[in-house]
C-alpha cells in the first residue's frame, strides 16, 4: 500500500481513461468533447512515463513527447474548424452537424 509500484500508476491511468471515455460518450458540445480527448491523451502519458521509470528505459518518455506534440497540433486544427463551423451555424452541437441527408 505504501510502496508505489507500476501497478498503482497503471490503475490511475485506467481510472483517468475511463473518465475521459465517459466524457466522450455523454457530451454533445464539440468543445467539451475536445476536453475529454485531452484527458485520454494525458492518461496515456502517465502510463508511458511510469513504464519508462520502472523499466529504466527512455522510450516511454519519447513517446509521451510525441503524444504531446500531436495533441497540440490536433487542438490547433480542431479549434480552427470549430470556429469556422460556429461562424456558419451559430452552435457547436454534435446533433446539428449532419449536412448529408441519407
Amino acid at each position, binding site marked *: 500500500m505504501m510502496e508505489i509500484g507500476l501497478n498503482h500508476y497503471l490503475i490511475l491511468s485506467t481510472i*483517468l481513461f475511463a473518465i475521459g471515455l465517459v466524457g466522450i460518450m455523454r457530451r454533445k458540445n464539440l468543445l467539451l468533447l475536445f476536453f475529454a480527448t*485531452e484527458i485520454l491523451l494525458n492518461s496515456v502519458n502517465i502510463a508511458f512515463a511510469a513504464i519508462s521509470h520502472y*523499466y529504466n528505459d527512455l*522510450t516511454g518518455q519519447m513517446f509521451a513527447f510525441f503524444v504531446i506534440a500531436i*495533441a497540440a497540433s490536433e487542438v490547433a486544427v480542431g479549434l*480552427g474548424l470549430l470556429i469556422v463551423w460556429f461562424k456558419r451555424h451559430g452552435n457547436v452541437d454534435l446533433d446539428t452537424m449532419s449536412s448529408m441527408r441519407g
Partner: protein
Amino acid sequence: MFEAVAFYLFAFLTISMFYITVTTSQALYALTALAAGMIFISAFFFILGADFLGAVQIIVYTGAVMAIYAFGMMFFDSTRSVREKQGNKYIISGLAILSAVLVVLIFAAPMISTNMTAFYPSIEGAGNTQEVGMVLFTKYLIPFEVAAVMLLVAMIAGIVLAGKKMDLSLTLMNQAEIDEIKKEQDKKVLS
C-alpha cells in the same frame, strides 16, 4: 513514504478535477478544471523522475493548449449551459470502464508476460534533460523532424481556418451567389 503521500494526494486531485471537467454543464468551469488537472498531472512526471517531461507538460498544456482553448472560447457563447445526451448513465459508465480496462490490459499483457529489457537504458551520470536530448537527437531524430513539420502544418491550418471569408461555403451556395462574389473580386482586381 513521502512518495506514497504525494502519489495519493495528486491522484485524488487529478481524478476530482477531471471528474468536474466531464460532468459540469458550464464550459468555463470545465476549462478551468482541465487546466488544473493538467498541472497536477505534471506532478506525477516529477515524482517519476521525468523532469523534462513535467516541464513540457506545464508549458505546452497549460501554457499553449489551454490558452488556445481560452481564446477559442471567446468565439463561442460560453455562458450558456451545455445540453447533454439523455442516455442511460449506467450503460455509459459501464462501457467506459470496461473499454478502459481492456485497453490497459491489451498494452500491459505483453509487458507482464515477457521479460522486457531496456531498449535505451538510462545513461550513468547524466540528468534527465541530458538523457532525453541524447536519445531524442540520435535514435528519434526523424520522428522529431516529422513532428516539427506536423506542427508547422497545424499552425498554417489554424491561421487559415480562423481567417476571413472562411465562413462562406461554396458547396452550400447556389450559382447566383457565387457569381456575385466573383464579380466583386473582379472589381477589386480592376480598381
